[in-house]
């Protein structure tokens, strides 16, 4: 049930773009994206609920394709501060069609941005 993230790692120069993917083998209710820097807590970026919506703030956005059971995180014009490990957490629907409230996290994608 653990979602699969790809790529496992990506190296960028400042100003370049990146896409991180998160795929599930089960139907999803929600996808949560977090960034974690070494030795720190995961920081919430955004949540997408089923419905195929897209969200974003600043230069980070994400999409959720309910049919394909996957989400993608888009980082545009990357900055040094974007470096870290990105995790997707997937929430699955209960019998009532809402969320169990439990997240299952992927293995993470290590993003490194160089000057």
């Amino acid at each position, binding site marked *: 049930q653990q979602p699969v993230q790809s790529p496992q790692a990506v190296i960028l120069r400042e100003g370049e773009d990146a896409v991180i993917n998160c795929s599930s083998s089960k139907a999803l209710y929600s996808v949560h994206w977090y960034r974690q820097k070494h030795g720190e*807590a*995961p920081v*919430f970026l955004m*949540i997408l609920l089923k419905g195929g919506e897209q969200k974003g703030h600043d230069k980070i956005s994400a999409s959720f394709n309910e049919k394909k059971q996957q989400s993608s995180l888009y980082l545009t014009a990357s900055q040094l501060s974007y470096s870290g490990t990105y995790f997707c*957490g997937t929430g699955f629907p209960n019998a009532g069609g809402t969320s169990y*409230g439990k997240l299952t*996290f992927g293995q*993470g994608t290590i993003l490194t941005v160089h000057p």
Partner: protein
Amino acid sequence: EAGVVQSPRYKIIEKKQPVAFWCNPISGHNTLYWYLQNLGQGPELLIRYENEEAVDDSQLPKDRFSAERLKGVDSTLKIQPAELGDSAVYLCASSRTNEQFFGPGTRLTVL
């Protein structure tokens, strides 16, 4: 608004010793989670509370792990006795709706 508070931040113990971690969630957050994070891995849920009720503890190794949230606010996670394989970061998170906010974690080293 204060974030999720955890203590201690670091703990080193010898195997077979007991250890306890404490978490104070964000004010007003009824749901509290304890996660375990191994190096290079994503967080794995141990237990989830709705107020004082443990609604999901299916992944908590109950032979040695226990948790409580007596008044529906702060929570304690205990390991007794600790094993070498318990070395990891123990994260606490809280939520009011769908968004979960994490504390800084406790890094446990079992020697």
